[in-house]
C-alpha cells in the first residue's frame, strides 16, 4: 500500500518534470497528431492512395480561394486545364466549391467499418491536390497519409519485437550468470556480427514475389528486429548484474520468490528508464531505414505508398527544381525524426534518477 502511493508520487513528479519541458511536450503533441492522422488516413484523405488522375500528373498544389468578386466567399478552387507537358492553367470561369464530409471511394475504417465518407473533397470533376500530384497523377496529400501508416507503425512493431527479446535474454543472462550467461552473450555476439545490409539484399532476392509489398517489408523489418535485440540485451544484462545483488532482490529471494517473478517484478523494472529512452531514440532510426530501403528499391514498392518510396521518386534535378512539392515526404521524415529525438531527450531528463524533483 505504502509502496504504491510512493510509486504514484514518483510518477506524478516525473510527469510534472516532463511537462515543464515545453519543447518535449510540443514534440509529443506533434507526434500524437501525426499518429492520429495515420490512423484516420482513409477518412482524412480525399482519395485512396492509388487513385490516379491520368491527365493531372505533376499538378502543382491546388490554390484554395476564400474570396471572389463579391468579397468573402465559401472556399472554392478553379478547374485547371493542361496547356503543355506538366503545365496547367486555371480556368477562372469554372469554380468548384470545397465540401466537407463528402462521399467518395469506399474504405474500411480500422479494418472493420465500411464507409465512404471523407473529411473533405470538391464538387465537380476537378480533383483537389492539397500538396500537388506525382508523376502518375496521384494526390500527394492522400499518399502521405497512407504512407505514414507504414513509416510510423512499422517502427513500433520492430521496437516491440527487439525490446521483448532483449529484455528476456538480458534478464536471464544477467540473473543466472555462469554458463547460461556465457551461451546467451556469445549468441548475441554472433547475431551482432551478421552484416545487415547483405542480409537485406539476400532477403530481397529470396522472398516470394506475389506477397504484397507491405507484407514483404514487414517481414524484412521483423527479421531485422530479430537481429537488433543483441546490442540492447548486452546493456540490460549489465544493468541486471548490478541490480541482482541489491538488498531488495536478495530479500525477495530469501522469502522464496520464484526466479521468474524476481526477474519480471523486481529486476527488469529498474531497466525501464533505459528501455523507454532507447525505444524513442530507435524509432526514428527505423523510419530513416525505411526511407533508405525504399530508396534502394528494397522497401515498400509501388503502388503502395511510404514516405521513403515517395521521396525516392524525386531523385532528379528537374523534378526537384520544377516540382518541389515532391520533396514534402522528406520534410515529414525530418519532422518526425526531430520530434522523436526531442521527445526522447525530454523523457531522459524526466526519468533521470539524479534529477531532483523540486516542484
Amino acid at each position, binding site marked *: 500500500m505504502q509502496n504504491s502511493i510512493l510509486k504514484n508520487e514518483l510518477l506524478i513528479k516525473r510527469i510534472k518534470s516532463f511537462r515543464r519541458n515545453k519543447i518535449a511536450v510540443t514534440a509529443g503533441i506533434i507526434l500524437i497528431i501525426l499518429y492520429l492522422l495515420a490512423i484516420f488516413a482513409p477518412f482524412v484523405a480525399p482519395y485512396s492512395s492509388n487513385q490516379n488522375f491520368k491527365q493531372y500528373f505533376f499538378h502543382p498544389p491546388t490554390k484554395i480561394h476564400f474570396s471572389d468578386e463579391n468579397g468573402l466567399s465559401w472556399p472554392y478552387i478553379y478547374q485547371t486545364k493542361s496547356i503543355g507537358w506538366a503545365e496547367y492553367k486555371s480556368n477562372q470561369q469554372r469554380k468548384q466549391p470545397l465540401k466537407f464530409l463528402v462521399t467518395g471511394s469506399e474504405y474500411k475504417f480500422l479494418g472493420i467499418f465500411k464507409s465512404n465518407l471523407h473529411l473533405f473533397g470538391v464538387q465537380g470533376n476537378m480533383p483537389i491536390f492539397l500538396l500537388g500530384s506525382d508523376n502518375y497523377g496521384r494526390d500527394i496529400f492522400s499518399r502521405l497519409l497512407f504512407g505514414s501508416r507504414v513509416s510510423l507503425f512499422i517502427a513500433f512493431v520492430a521496437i516491440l519485437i527487439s525490446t521483448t527479446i532483449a529484455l528476456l535474454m538480458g534478464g536471464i543472462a544477467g540473473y543466472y550468470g555462469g554458463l547460461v550467461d556465457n551461451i546467451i552473450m556469445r549468441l548475441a555476439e554472433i547475431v551482432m556480427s551478421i552484416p545487415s545490409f547483405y542480409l537485406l539484399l539476400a532477403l530481397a532476392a529470396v522472398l516470394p*514475389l506475389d506477397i504484397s509489398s507491405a507484407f514483404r517489408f514487414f517481414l524484412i523489418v521483423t527479421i531485422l528486429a530479430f537481429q537488433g535485440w543483441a546490442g540492447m540485451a548486452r546493456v540490460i544484462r549489465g544493468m541486471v548484474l548490478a541490480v541482482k545483488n541489491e538488498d531488495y532482490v536478495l530479500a525477495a529471494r530469501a522469502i522464496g520468490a520464484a526466479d521468474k517473478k524476481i526477474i519480471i517484478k523486481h529486476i527488469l523494472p529498474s531497466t525501464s528508464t533505459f528501455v523507454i529512452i532507447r525505444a524513442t531514440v530507435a524509432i526514428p532510426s527505423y523510419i530513416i531505414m525505411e526511407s533508405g530501403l525504399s530508396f534502394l528499391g528494397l522497401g515498400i514498392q509501388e503502388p503502395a505508398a511510404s514516405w521513403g518510396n515517395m521521396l525516392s521518386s524525386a531523385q532528379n534535378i*528537374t523534378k526537384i527544381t520544377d516540382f518541389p512539392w515532391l520533396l514534402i515526404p522528406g520534410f515529414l521524415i525530418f519532422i518526425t525524426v526531430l520530434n522523436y529525438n526531442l521527445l526522447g531527450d525530454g523523457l531522459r531528463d524526466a526519468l533521470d534518477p539524479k534529477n531532483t524533483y523540486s516542484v
Partner: protein
Amino acid sequence: MKKRIFIYLILFMLIFATLAAAQNISLQDPWYSKKEQGKYGGTLISTLTGDPKTFNILIAKETSSTDVLAGYIFEGLLTRNGVTTELEPELAKEWSISEDGKVYTLKLRRGVQWSDGVEFTADDVIFTFDLISDQQIPTSSRDVMLIDAEFPEYKKLDKYTVQFKLAKSFAPFLNNLTAPILPKHKLYSIWQAGDFNKVWGINTEPAEIVGTGPFKLKEYKPGERIIMVKNNLYWRKDPAGKTLPYLENWVRIIADNQETKSLLFEKGQTHFLAVRGIDYKRFASKADQNDFTLVNAGPNFGTDFLIFNLNPRNPKLKEQPWKLEWFNNIHFRKAIAYAFDKQTMISQAMAGQGTPQWSPVSSPNKVYLNQDVKKYPFNLEKARQELKAAKFYWDDSGKLYDQNDRRVEFNILTYAENNTIISLMNIIASDLRNLGMKINASPIEFNKLVSKLDNEWDFDTIIIGLTGGVEPHSGSNVWPSNGHLHMWNPRQKNPATEWEARIDELFRLGAAATSIKQRQKYYDEFQEIIAEKLPVIYTVVPNSIYAVRNNLKNTDITAYGGVIWNIYELYLED
C-alpha cells in the same frame, strides 16, 4: 659525349626514314566532305558513361570499350551512314556481289595510312579475318560471320583487292564487313606468339595503339578522362582537299551518372549531351541564354515490351496450369494489348518525349520498318470485349474470373535499375487492375530477371528492352523458334505454333534473298505476324534528344548516329 651524338644521329635517321616512307605513300582514293568548309583547331569535350576495359577492339565486349574505339580509332571496310542508315564504303572504295550472292569482292582505298605512317593494304584485312576466325580469340565478331556453322572463305586477290566466298547466298553478310580492321605490322608477331588476347590492355602506351580512324589515343586516366588527338594522316578530306578532321583534340570525361553529365553540360564544360525526356523542359528554357540548341532526333533504337511466358516447360505450371491457358489465348493477349495506354506512358514515363511502337523492328529503321502492322490503340472497352470473347467474366465488385471461376492474377516483373521501365510497368499494371485483374508488379535485379528469362522460365510476364539495329537478321537469336533469346518459349526443337514456323521460314528467306526489295517483303510479313499474334506487346520508345552547343558546326544529328557519327567533319567556331 660522342656516344650521345651518335644516338641523336641514329634517332634523326630513323625519323627521316619514317618520314620518307610516309611521303612515298600517296592517297589515291580519298573521300571528300560535302559539308561546308570548316575551321581547323579546337578541343571537343564530351562525356563517356564508363571506363574502357580494353583497347583491343576485337575482344572488347562492352560498349564502354567500343564507344571509345569504333569508328574513331579503328574503322571497318564498310560503315553505316548516320543519316540514311545505309551501308557505305569506308576503308573499301567499292564492293560487288556476284549474281548468285555468294562471292563478295571489295576494292580497297589505295594509299590509306595507319596512324604511324605504314600503308594499309589487303594484308591487314586478311590478317583481321585470320584473327576473327581464330578459335583462341574470344570475339563476338566470329559467331555472326558463320553461315551454317561455316566461316566464309577469304583471300587477297592483289594488294588492294580482297574476296569473300560464302557457302550460300546470305545477305546479312554485308553488315559483317563493318568489323574493324587491325594493323598487321603491329600485331602479327604478337598473335603468332599466342599473346593476342593480352595485347592492348588499358595500360598500353597510347602511342602503341595504331588505327586508321580520324583520332589517335593520347592519354587515358582511369576514372577521369580519355584524351584523343587528330590523326594527321587521315584519308578523309575537306572540300578544299585538306586533311580532316578539323578538331585538334577530343577530351572525353568519364561520368557514369546522368545528373553529373547534365551538370557538366550546364556549366559549359562539354559540347553536347543526350537529354532525358524528363529534363527536356528545363533544358528548353535555358537553350537561348546558354547558347545551345535542343535537337529532337526522333525515336531511338531501343524497344521495351511485355513478354508472356508461353513456355510449357515453365516449372510453376504444375501448380498453376491455367496461367498458360490464359496466356495462350489470343483474345487474352489482345485484351492486354488494348489496355496499353501509350499516350499516358509517353506523357508520364517519358515526359512527353516518346513515340508509340507497334512493330518488332526499331522505329528509326528506315529500311525495314513496316508502318502498317496491326495496332491496338488504348481502349478498355475493346479489352473487355476480347475478355468476354475468351469467356472471362466479372463479379459484382468488378473482379475478373476465367470460365473455371479462377481469379485472374499474375505477376509482372521488370528490372529495378531503370526508372522509366518501372514507370511503364506501373502504368500498365494500373490499367490491368482497372480491368479487374490482380497484378503483382515488382522490379527485381537485372541479372535475376535475365536468368528467369533465360533458364528458369518461371515468370508470368516480364517487361524488358532490347536494342535493335538496322539489319533485321541480327534478331535471329530472338525471333526464330530455336533462338536462345526467343523469350516467350526459347530453344524449341520444333516450332510450337504455325505462325512461329512461318517466322522461322521468313528469317531463312530473308537471309538468302539478295535484293533489299525482296528482303523487305519477308521482314514486313514477319512484323505483321508478331503484331497479329502478340507474343510480345510493345510499349513506347523514348525520343533521342540532344543538347548541342551552337559553336559546334556541321552536325547531322540522328537517333542512329547521335551527334558524333561524322566527327571528322565537325568543327568549332570561336
